[in-house]
Structure formats: structure tokens, C-alpha cells
């Protein structure tokens, strides 16, 4: 089966959640202009586990930020539920983030002044369909650490709290920028498992950015980015389970 056929087949079977069309991004720094994205087209399907792979500086974070509505493209469209979120006003964009997107950052970005539980509550308070905080703490295996502050936890624990916080809103799309980047192997696996569970158990879309090719193995689809362009898209017929991922 050729790649193209496969793609068509998938598009027919699955609903598109997000459609990215001709997106470019330039950073102007005085005289110099950096072309972070040079025209990117792709779709994200409902319920898929998408991994975006690429070398450092290729534009992965840039595209994720644009998808998540925290940055604007220089050109192009991002269509979510028939609405071009690259064109809407800040107020509506905020509403989009509030209702539909969950974000996991490479450096956790927990609020240092709030406990693990409160960090999660911070997000769940924003959503009417929020998940139970105590269940989430259970899921990430930190039920007994709910009252600890970020500075009292290890990096892996902090990242798990950050994921729980992103998931807590029960968003349509979960966007993760290098979720395992700062973690050791086994902690990384743990984190991936949580993400996969969210994907399968709740049938939500998960997008992961990484430069770690091994993680590609557990994806439904892998998007390769290079120099601000999509290099290729690979559909994974038989994704492996997180435990089997190796790097």
C-alpha cells in the first residue's frame, strides 16, 4: 500500500479535528529573518496519537504553539471545527484554549506556589467537563503527593503533575512538547503510558513533539519535520505499547 492511498483511506475513515494549511512563521530579529516554518500542510484526526519528529531547531515547538493557539502564524490557516483560529481575536482564541486544548511543556511549568493538587485544580476549574482531581492523582501514581509543592518533587513527578494538569480539563486535543525530554528512560515510559491511556480510554487526540525517534513507534502516525517543512508522513499500522518503546 502506498503512502498516498493510505492517507486517503484514513481521511475517509476519520474525522479531521484540526487542519493546518500553508502555515509559515518568520521571526524578524533586526536585519535577520529566521524562517521557522516554510509552509506546512497537514491534518490531525480525531482520536489519533500523533508524533512529530525532527531535529533541534526544525520548527516543532513553533508548529505546536501555533496549533495550541498560543502563537500566531505569519501566513496560513488553522481550521478547528470550521473556524480559522489564526484569524480570530484574542478573546475567542483564549476560549479555544480554555475549552479545547491541553498543554504539556518540556519544563513542566508548574506554578511553584501551588501544591500538586492545586496545580491540577487550577486547570480543572476552567472546564465544565473536568476530570476528577483525585482520580488523576491516582492515575499518575502521586495520590499521596497531592499536598506537595513542585520544589518538593522530582522532575519526573513534576512532569506527571503537569500532564495531569493538562488532562484535567478533559480537552479535545492534548499537545505535549518534549514531555520526556528531561526524564530518564523508565520515568519517560511511565509518562508516555499516561498519555497513551488518555488517548485510548477517552478517545482524545494526543500530539507529541520529540526528537526521540523511538517514541515514533507508539504513534498512529509520525510527522517528520525538517527545516520548517514536512519531510514525510508515516502511518504506523501496528503501534507498539509504551512499555515496548526503546531509545
Amino acid at each position: 500500500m502506498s503512502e498516498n492511498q493510505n492517507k486517503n483511506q484514513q481521511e475517509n475513515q476519520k474525522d479531521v479535528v484540526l487542519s493546518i494549511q500553508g502555515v509559515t512563521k518568520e521571526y524578524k530579529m533586526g536585519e535577520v529573518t529566521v524562517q521557522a516554518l516554510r509552509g506546512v500542510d497537514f491534518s490531525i484526526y480525531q482520536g489519533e496519537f500523533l508524533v512529530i519528529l525532527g531535529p533541534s531547531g526544525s520548527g516543532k515547538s513553533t508548529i505546536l504553539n501555533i496549533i495550541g493557539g498560543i502563537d500566531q502564524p505569519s501566513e496560513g490557516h488553522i481550521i478547528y471545527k470550521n473556524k480559522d483560529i489564526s484569524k480570530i481575536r484574542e478573546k475567542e482564541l483564549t476560549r479555544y484554549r480554555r475549552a479545547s486544548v491541553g498543554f504539556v511543556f518540556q519544563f513542566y511549568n508548574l506554578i511553584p506556589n501551588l501544591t500538586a493538587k492545586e496545580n491540577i485544580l487550577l486547570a480543572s476549574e476552567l472546564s465544565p467537563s473536568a476530570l476528577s482531581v483525585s482520580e488523576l492523582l491516582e492515575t499518575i501514581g502521586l495520590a499521596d503527593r497531592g499536598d506537595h509543592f513542585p520544589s518538593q518533587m522530582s522532575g519526573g513527578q513534576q512532569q506527571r503533575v503537569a500532564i495531569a494538569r493538562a488532562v484535567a480539563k478533559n480537552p479535545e486535543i492534548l499537545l505535549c512538547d518534549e514531555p520526556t525530554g528531561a526524564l530518564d528512560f523508565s520515568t519517560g515510559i511511565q509518562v508516555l503510558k499516561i498519555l497513551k491511556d488518555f488517548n485510548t480510554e477517552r478517545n482524545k487526540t494526543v500530539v507529541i513533539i520529540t526528537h526521540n525517534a523511538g517514541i515514533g513507534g507508539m504513534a498512529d502516525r509520525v510527522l517528520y519535520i525538517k527545516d520548517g517543512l514536512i519531510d514525510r508522513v508515516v502511518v504506523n499500522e501496528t503501534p507498539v505499547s509504551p512499555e515496548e518503546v526503546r531509545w
Partner: protein
Amino acid sequence: MILFKKALRTVWRGKAAYISCMLLIAAGIYMLVALGASARALSASAARYYKASRLADAFASVSALPAGALSSLTQIDGVDEVQARLTYDARIVALNAEKLIWLRLISYDKSYPGIPLNAPSVTGFELTGEYDVWIGQSFLDTHQLKTGDELTAIVEGRQIPLHIAGGANSPEYVYAVRDPSDMFPDQEAFGIAYVDIHALSLLLNRQNTFNDISFSFENGYTFDGLKQNLNTALAPYGLISLIARKDLFSYNMVNSEIKNDMAMSYSVPILFAGMASIVLYLMLKRIIEQERPQIGTLKTFGYTNFEILAHYIWYGLITGLLGAIVGILLGGVSVKPMLDLYTRYFTLPDMSTDIPPDLIFIALLVALGFGTLGAYAGARPALRLNPAEAMRPPTPPPVKGDIMKQLPFLQWILTSRGSMALRNILRAKARSAFIMAGVMFSFGMLAAMCPMTTMMGDIILSKYSKVEAYDVKLTLKSPQASAGARQEAMKLPGAAMAEPLREIPAEIRMSNRKKSVILMGLRQDTMLYRLYDDEKHSVSRVPEAGIILNQFTADDLGARRGDAVLISTPYNSEEDEEISVTVKDIIHQNMTAAAYMDVNAVNAMLHLPDTADSVMIKTADLAGLKTAVNDAKNIRTIEDTYSAIANIKQAMGSYTSITWIIVALGSAIAFAIIYNSSAISLSEKKREYATLRVLGMQVGEVCEILNFEYWILFAAGCLLGIPFAAFLQNSINQMMAGYLDNFSMPTGIPLWGLGAAAGGCMAAVLLSNFSAKGKIRTLDMVEVLKERE
């Protein structure tokens, strides 16, 4: 909700900073509530009292008004009621050997139906016996006298036994001084005494004539409208003075106290809350910079700009609210002591210690308003942060050359750590400016306030040391030939020098502006009264012809040197109602409006013989002189410089303690600002210092860099503080000038004020350094470096 928790926790973690901000606000609110509530209580009580006791609308003093002339006064259009009384200042013997003690005998007409004008409130018995008197309650209290006791007064040279029938307060003597020049009441030296009118007229041998007339007006009539008619009507009876109620010294003092306190109760809180607002603004601005990633995270989750802004405004609101609560509570309990302080000067009934609800409302409005304003201004940049941008640390500004390269000589002066400190200062310009502003603020405030503790006293006492070189001034009952008066004075015990002078109440006019002053006629070669200029620090000569005005008089008239002014006095003849005189000089004095002329020129101008109505004496034997003149018939008053100074010093005591409280508050503020700014700066640089420690620097070495930074900023802040202090002082003076007539504060900050300010700031910097050292010592390097910035 969770965000609110975060706000609380952040405030709690940085509590020192917020508490000092809160205290600033609390101090302002405290003044607002304590002063505001007491000024209102004073105002309400005074208004009630004046109404109930029917304080007159105008007061006249005349030589002799026969009873028969009263009905003609009542018939003046607009005059409602006329009260005629006799008053006489009698000396009391044997109460106190050191002090001259006076009672102002005021006639009281028992037969008057209803409530008379200026009705005394009396506790005690009716005036039945011939020499029964009601005496001012505070006078009784001070001398521990009670109903039934006796006093001996000297009236017209006779010793009269006064029998105390009760205590009395008068609406005319709420602020009881014998003469406006006394400034402060001395309850021991002066009191009032009501005597039956028949007894008093017999004593003074003035049956059916009066010397003190009060008027009340019909509705719709004002003093200014009636003044001309009253003047004309009273002139034939030897009019000495005619004043409106608002110019009655006691009334005026109560009013200006109310005005002054009201103004202070608004301006001080606004000043303090404003400063708190600025500190909050700076703090929030730094917080926003520090919490960039957090703000980015919140925005990424979909928190709206409004929610984020609201979150940061909470910091200000919490601070403001706590400040308001503390200030209101402290203010509430201070109202009573405040009112007690008032009652030392003002005799007024039932002052309410309640705090009016609108005052609490205003307090909350001010505290929350300024808290919100500062926080809002500081937090606003958070709105502009783009979330993706915010997640990244801010781009450091491009380094524009190195100061060490630009100014190579610095390398010779500074150690490597010194140059590191200097680079640090220049790199973090905003932070450095913040600390410098803190020092500047504090320095300016202390430098402007410290001198105020002594200034008021200096002004008043300089009148005695620089202007009035005499020891005693005797006022004569009737003018006497100058030469004779001088000769007699020189015969008094210890007299070394004596100078007769003229003191004439005069109205000076220039085009349509008028000013009432005491015109002093001095000898050209006067040694005992010097025309000292407080600004030029020099003494002016009395000119042979023409008049010297001080700037209060000149300013009110708009007069300049060389202008001609018109003078009218009770001695002017009919055809010569106003006499033109040239202004020879204008001198700057700190207190009271005045005008000076040569005594011979005054006499010539008013066609008076060579006479004097007062004599100034320099004596080596003050006590002896006082005893000698005690019973002299032609002496109306004896004014002695030493008792006046003693009385002023005593009264100044409470004023000085108030200014010290303000200075203490100022120091606390200064300390809060400096301590805060350095604490904030330290928390921002934690990472940097931790890195230095990891590199192997000792605590002492890190502190050296830090201290160096602080001292450079301290020096710069102090330098900037000098002009700021001058600006502050100028504003304070202008504010005071607006509320106090004929009173001006000297400008210029004495060296000791600058020294005290620098010392105060230095103490704060030292303490900040000390606390910083402790923080650096206990710095948890692992934790600090683990946090991602």
C-alpha cells in the same frame, strides 16, 4: 479560586515587603481616621456649642459707651441684639509667686431674660454676694480651686476678695489666651471670671457705661455689610476695635485647627497611600517579570487576560484591605486620646469619639483604590505577554559596550568584585533604579521632616531672641510723656535700659486691599526691638520717615517698596481719615503681620504729643521689677519675655512630640522602602549568587559584591534625595501657608537634617545588608538552581 490561593501564598511568602506596604497604607488610613474623626468631632461640638451659647456675630471694644446709647445701636438696620458688658483684666495675688496671674473680669447681668449672647455655661451657685464670681473651669482645675474658695484680685489698685460661686466656660474663650500675641493658652496664668454687673461697675467706678459690646445680626446680614454703620455708630464712644466673629481669636483658632486637621487628614493618607501605591507598582512589575512563564502557562490553559490581571490586582487589594483594617482599628482607638489632646487647648463640651461611617467608607476607598491602582499599573504588562513568548525567558537587552572599557580608569580604583558590582548595577538598570528610588524617597522624606521637629520652636523663639531684646514690656493704661515714662522706668529695680514705644491698632489700605495690624512706633536708635529679617539675617533700621512692612502685610496689600499706603487709626481726625505713608522697606518675618514706623513720625502723623503707651525695659532684677510694678496704677499689663518663652516651650512640647511621631513614621516608611527594594532585588538575583557560591565563592565574597552595589546605589540615591527633599519641603510649606495665616516656615534644610536623613537611610541599608548576608549564607544552592527561570 485557586488563583486566589496563589495570591495569598505569594503575599505570604513575600510578607515583609507587603507588610511594609500595608503599614504605609495603614499609617495613612490611621491619620485619616484619627484626625478626620477628631476634627469632625471638634467641628460638630464647636458648632453645637456656639449655637447653644449664642456666640455673637461681632465684637467691639470701646472706651466708654453710656447705657443710654444702647438703644441707638439696636436700631441699626440688621442688628438683632446688642449685649453691653464691662471687662477688666485684674491681677490675682498670692496664687503663684513666680508668675503673673490674670483673671478677665466680665460683667454678668442676672436680670437678662432668656439666654444672653455669649452665654457662659455654669456649674455652681447663683451670683448672690457682692464679690461672688464664676471662674473659668480650667483655671479652677489648674489651681485646684473649688466653689467656696476665695481669691484676692487687684482692681484699680484695691485688693478685692473674690468669692468663688462656681465654674464657668465661655464660648468666647474656647481657646483661652489673654492676648493673641501669647499664641498658646496658659491655664495657670489666665482665666475668666464672671462678676455681677452692678458689683463690677461699682468697682471700676463706671456706673452705666460699658467697654465691651457684642452684636448679633438678623438673618441675611453680614459683618461686612454692617461694618460701616457699626463703625460710625461706635466711633463717638472711643472705638478701639471692631471684629467679626470669624476674627475672634478663639473662634479663629478653633476653626483653623479644624481646617488644618481636615486638610491633613486627607493629604497625609493620600501621600502615604500614594507611596504605597508606587511601591506596589514596582513590586508587581518585578513579579510580572519573574512570573513570565507562569503567566504564559495560565494563558496557555485559557485563563483570560482579565482573570490574570484580576489575580495580580488581588495582591494590591489584599495589601490595601489589610492596611485599611489596621489603620481603621488603630485610628478608632486613637480618637479618644486625640480629643483629650484637643481639650488641653480647647474647652468644648461633649466631643463624640464615634467614627462616622462615611469616614470608614472613604478610608476603604483610599486604601483599596491606591492598592488596586498600584497593582494594576504594575501588572498591566502581563496583558501584552504573548503566551509562547512568555514561556521563554525574556531576551536580554543587547550589551552596549562595557563600562570598564569605556572608562578604563575605573579599573585602577575598583577591585575585580567592585567592577563586577558596577557591571551588575548597569546591567539591571530597572532594579538598580528601584533601589535608588527607594533611597531617594526615604532620604528626601527624612531630610524634609527632621528639621520640622525644631523649626516651629525656632521660629517662635527667634522672635524673642532676635527681635525682642527687652526683658519686660509694660503697657500703660493711658499714654504718658515719653521722657517721663523712660525716666520712671529707669528707676525700677535693675533697669539697665528703657525705651518708650507706641503700639497703635491701625488699618492699612492700598487701593482696595486692607490689612489690620498693630502699628509699632519705635525709636530710630532702638536697642530693644530689632527689625530682624529672617531671610536675609540682618537687622533693618527704623527710617526717619515712611513705614516698614513685613511681608505678610505687604503681600496682603500687594505693596512694594516705594508704594504709598493709607493708614487709619482710632487717633485719626475726622478730616484726616486716612494718611498716606511711603513704604520704605519690606522685611521678611516668620510670624504675624506687622508695620513699623519711627515713634516721632507716628506722633507727628497723628498730631499726638511726644507720648508713649508702652515701655520696654532691660533689667537685671526681673523679680524685683515685677514686684515693684505690681501695684502701679498706670500699668495695664506686664509682659515678660521669660515666662512667655517658658510657656511656649511647654506648649511646643506636644507639637514637637507630634512632629517626632511623623519623623518616626517617616523612618519606618524609609526603612520599608529600602528594605523592600533590596529584598526584592536579592530574591531576583538568588540564582546568580547561588551560581557564584557553586563556583566556590565564600559568603563574604558574595556579600562584598552585593554591599558594593548597595553603597553605590545608596550614594546616588542620597544625592538625588537632596533636590527631592527641597521639593517636598516646598510642598509642605505651601500646604501650611494655605492653612495658617501670617505664618511662614523658613526654607532650606539645615546640614543636620541632611545628616540625619543620610544616617537613617544608611541604617536601613546596613540592616538590609545584614539580612541579605543571612539569606546568602542559608541559600539552598541545589533548590535555587533546580528551578527553571
